């Protein structure tokens, strides 16, 4: 079992090491510095010892000798300090840049994976991977570099010094010391499980707190404060139990290895003393031996200390690499069409599609749209309206059949060019952190001030923007506190107004805007889209009455189509939907 774990750990480590390649010269420099630092720290005591030998007693002090030694010592210490600083600087630089590389790669991966992946994964989890997990890797690398580098070199150095004094005693030290590694890894393995349990409970608590605090208003409305506190306390007490365990077991490492080291120290002392009694070594040699035995065991102690850190770094790296290993969308073919514009003839032929293999959502769907037509799509919740939009924009690829624009399969277009043919406004308003102006000019950063304002006016956003504290320079923050949902939607509309696209998709684009404003915006759209193709999804039937064609969808199929008048006359599903809005509490 240990072997299996070993096997799946190596590739992760290997992959991290690969990221170090561009920084090989920094790495070499860091290694050289590590060697220099360790050499300096090891020679320091030797020089001090020699100096002490020059101070024997009253009248027996060699001042010129001390002066010379002091010069040497100063040089060694200065060099040691300098190389130590340089080594830390190099490892910092390597770590932070490597981490940046991994992070940028992970992020750009997220922009190339199919939407299916992003829709299907918790965003919180993906964000954690890009932010915290990569941060954990960086901590692990920093610790790893500084402790492992100097540690390994110190071990090798002291080993050499000890062997040069006495081979037998050196062997004893070498044989006993790994015991501390064994103890450390024994504890690490146990505490690792406890840490995992602890972070699981902590995650559970985070989820619960988020749910309860995020919906505090509802909790209060239903008077559930006491009940939610009770549940919180239950999780909290579990967190206490496993927190105490995890913390206690992991903090065992240090005292335990210190104890083993103590045993080593005593062992060297006793064996050395026995050897000295038998005349095998001198007293002076015992004392340097003891000093080196101390030096030798310390890095083991430190290394075992970073084991936990490295463990969690590897675990985090695995989560990050899992994202990197996700297959990307198939790249656009070289010969893919990249038209600057399009006429707007859209054909959907025999299209079937399912998000989950077992639940077909759209089946054998057919639709012909001529340039300049205004197509409205209505139907009950979950009938596949939004899915159709996903397919038109090629956010998802169809399972069967084909969609074509201007007679050409959309899979033969470059994705960017295809999407540029559409202007899209969704129900979910998305703005990024930046000024109002930047948000409106998102698709055309080069747009002039006049164009931005004209777009805002067309979207009926100008008047509220003017009233914002800094007008067009007001920064929209994450929570969007100062701006209402409806106002956000107006900004999204302005954003599309500015691009004046050849085709338009409105998916519940005005659902948060009051109907008076909606009608004015509708007029602006009508003007902009004269002679161009547009698709409109809406709940409010009033907003689609003017459409050239109304598609009535139900369970992934078109059940009726025609214009408002003809559909009403037919007296089918549409008529029923339409009339139902006037039913209600009439009795």
């Amino acid at each position, binding site marked *: 079992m240990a072997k299996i774990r070993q096997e799946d750990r190596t590739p992760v480590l290997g992959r991290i090491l690969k990221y170090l390649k561009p920084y090989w010269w920094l790495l070499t420099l860091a290694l050289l510095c590590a060697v220099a630092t360790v050499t300096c720290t090891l020679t320091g005591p030797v020089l*001090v010892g020699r100096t*002490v030998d020059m101070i024997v*007693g009253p*009248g027996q*002090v060699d001042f010129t000798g001390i002066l010379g030694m*002091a010069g040497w010592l100063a040089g060694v210490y*200065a060099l040691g*300090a300098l190389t130590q*600083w340089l080594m830390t*600087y190099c490892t910092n630089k390597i770590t932070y*840049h490597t981490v940046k590389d991994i*992070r*940028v790669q992970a992020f750009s991966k997220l922009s190339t994976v199919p*939407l299916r992946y992003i829709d299907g994964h918790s*965003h919180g989890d993906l964000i954690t991977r*890009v*932010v915290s997990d990569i941060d954990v890797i960086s901590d692990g690398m920093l610790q790893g570099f500084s402790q492992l580098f100097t540690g390994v070199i110190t071990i090798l150095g002291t080993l050499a010094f000890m062997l040069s004094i006495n081979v037998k005693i050196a062997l004893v030290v070498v044989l006993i010391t790994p015991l501390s590694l064994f103890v450390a890894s024994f504890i690490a393995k146990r505490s690792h499980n406890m840490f995992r349990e602890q972070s699981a409970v*902590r995650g559970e608590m985070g*989820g619960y707190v988020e*749910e309860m605090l995020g919906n*505090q*208003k*509802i909790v*209060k409305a*239903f*008077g559930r*404060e006491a009940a939610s506190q009770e549940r*919180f306390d239950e999780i*909290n007490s579990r967190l*206490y139990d496993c*927190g*105490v365990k995890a*913390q206690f077991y992991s*903090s065992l490492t*240090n*005292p335990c290895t*210190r*104890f083993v080291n*103590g*045993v080593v120290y*005593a062992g060297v*002392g*006793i064996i050395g*003393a026995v050897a000295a009694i038998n005349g095998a070594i001198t007293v002076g040699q*015992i*004392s340097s031996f003891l000093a080196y035995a101390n030096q030798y065991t310390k890095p083991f102690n430190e290394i075992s200390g970073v084991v936990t850190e490295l463990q969690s770094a590897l675990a985090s790296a695995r989560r990050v690499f899992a994202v990197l290993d996700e297959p990307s969308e198939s790249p656009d073919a070289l010969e893919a069409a990249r038209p600057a514009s399009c006429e707007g003839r859209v054909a959907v032929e025999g299209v079937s599609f399912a998000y989950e293999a077992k639940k077909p959502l759209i089946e054998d769907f057919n639709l012909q749209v001529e340039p300049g037509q205004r197509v409205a799509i209505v139907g*009950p919740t979950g009938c596949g309206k939004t899915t159709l939009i996903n397919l038109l*924009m090629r956010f998802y690829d169809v399972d069967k059949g084909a969609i074509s624009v201007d007679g050409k399969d959309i899979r033969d277009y470059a994705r960017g060019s295809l*999407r540029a043919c559409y202007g899209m406004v969704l129900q979910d308003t998305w703005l990024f952190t930046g000024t109002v102006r930047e948000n409106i000019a998102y698709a055309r950063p080069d747009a002039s001030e006049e164009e931005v304002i004209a777009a805002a006016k067309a979207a009926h956003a100008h008047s509220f923007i003017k009233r914002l504290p800094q007008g067009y320079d007001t920064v929209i923050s994450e929570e969007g506190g100062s701006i*209402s949902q409806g106002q956000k939607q107006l900004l999204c509309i302005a954003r599309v107004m500015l691009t004046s696209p050849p085709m338009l998709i409105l998916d519940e684009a005005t659902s948060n805007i*009051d*109907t*008076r404003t909606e009608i004015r915006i509708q007029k602006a759209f009508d003007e902009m889209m004269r002679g161009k193709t547009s698709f409109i999804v809406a*709940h409010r*039937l009033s907003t689609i009455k003017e459409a050239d064609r109304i598609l009535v969808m139900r369970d992934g199929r078109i059940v009726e189509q025609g214009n408002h008048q003809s559909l009403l006359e037919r007296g089918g599903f549409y008529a029923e939907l339409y009339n*139902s*809005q*006037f*039913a209600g*509490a009439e009795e």
Partner: protein
Amino acid sequence: MLKLVRYLKEFRKQVIIGPLFKLTEAIFELIVPLLMAKIIDDGVARGDLPYVLKTGAVIVLLGLVGLGCALICQYSAARASQGVGTRLRHDLFAHVGTLSHAEIDKLGTSTLINRIISDVNQLQVAVAMLIRLVIRAPFLVIGSTVMAIWLDWKLSLIFLVAGPLVALVLYQVMKRTIPFYRTIQKKLDRIGLITRENLEGARVIKAFSKQEHENQRFYAASDDLAQSSVRVGKVSALLNPLTSIIVNFAIIAILWFGGFRVDSGALTQGQIIALVNYMTQILLALVVVANLVVIFTKASASASRVNEIFETEPSILPGGEESGLSGTAKVAFKGVSFAYSTGENALEGVDLTVQPGQTVGIIGGTGAGKSTLVNLIPRFYDATAGRVLIDGVDVRAYDTAALRKKIGIVPQKSVLFTGTVRENLRWGKPDASDEEIARALNIAQAAEFVAKLPQGYDTPILQGGKNLSGGQRQRLAIARALVGRPDILILDDSSSALDYRTDAALRAALGAQAGESTVFVVSQRASAIRHADVIAVLDDGRLAGVGSHEQLLESCPVYREICLSQLSEEEVSR
């Protein structure tokens, strides 16, 4: 930070025992070299093998006892730190529970979560370190200095110069790096922000083909973080080399001036070695002190973030004793004005009286103050001027919990909680029977789809109701409010995700219950409220008109405009 010290009081035992045992271990550590010296001086010199073995055994025994002491200390540290953390989390969560909407809006949910989890964690670490190290490191520094003075006070002046110098270095490095840690945290937050934006806006970004632009934005943010981290690293990397160079130069000074002292016969060679060892001891302890300083600085930042929550007072006080709400209620707004903390009045001088059992439609444009108005009834906010009366009594005079129990609310955003369908529906009435639930589901037009769920009432709902559609969530949220048969029912634009047919059926079913409760229907759809007993039209926080559909069509231009924008001329008068 001091304000949180009271949490340590409960763990007085651990806080005293832990460091004491740690100290014992440290003292043993100091004794071991002395014993080793004895082995060499007495054992080897005299060739006394049994003495060597005996003393060797004592060293191992000391190690064992030391290990025991260390374990006791670590256990105390674990118990006390986790205990403090657990209490803190409990108190924080409880305190947040007493805050009202205004404060929660102001603080923001994400920072509350961070404070309850990460900041408390930071404090836990500090408590553990306090117990484990806070006695030991200074003990070693002071102990070594005292021993040096005892050996030779003149040479110990070197210690008294080196010590403050090291402290100065520590202070300077901290002063230059600690503010940066905060900046780095902010830069990391920005990376999280861009990632979140990109995940949420994946469709829009792809639609505008802005992937390249977003990648560059992210690159700039990560590069910025890397640069700052390296810059801070450059300074903080100075800490170790600088302190060790000061200490090492002090050692050189000891050797040089020690030479004179030995030459004059004031000191022996062995004492010089001891002084050098004490100096090295101090160096090691100081490194630990530096780490402690960093941990406590971080902890004090966390402590102030935690205290900020404790210091936030709920603006809505529990209210009076009045709990005598019974049967359908009469609701009246008298000259009500309200402003969110941002300033401008969201409501101004609203006067509206609703008779028991009436259904009131509230209509108006985006931001007209519709939701704000109904939020005042259950006291989510208190009116800044004027009064809200239920059965003639000011809402502030009611016991808040009792008041809210009588009110059923369906919020704009339909939120469900982790648990089964039944558990969610029992939120307002934990002992509701299946019959009561079935009745509520029927009215909410949810009975049909719930029956189709794999485990019926026992079907689990994932966090945020992710496994249901928007319309299904909304209908369950309506049913949840109906289960308790509230005296006042508030529907805050709560049928937006329903298609017209379902919405109409829902309205019909609610209509059939008419008279059971006083109902407030907030909507943007004229069709949703046109049959209400009373319609209140809001425009920019003011009441633009009150009356029936027909009356308002005649008298209220705002209402007329709204209706005409949604319905055709013929439908309006139909």
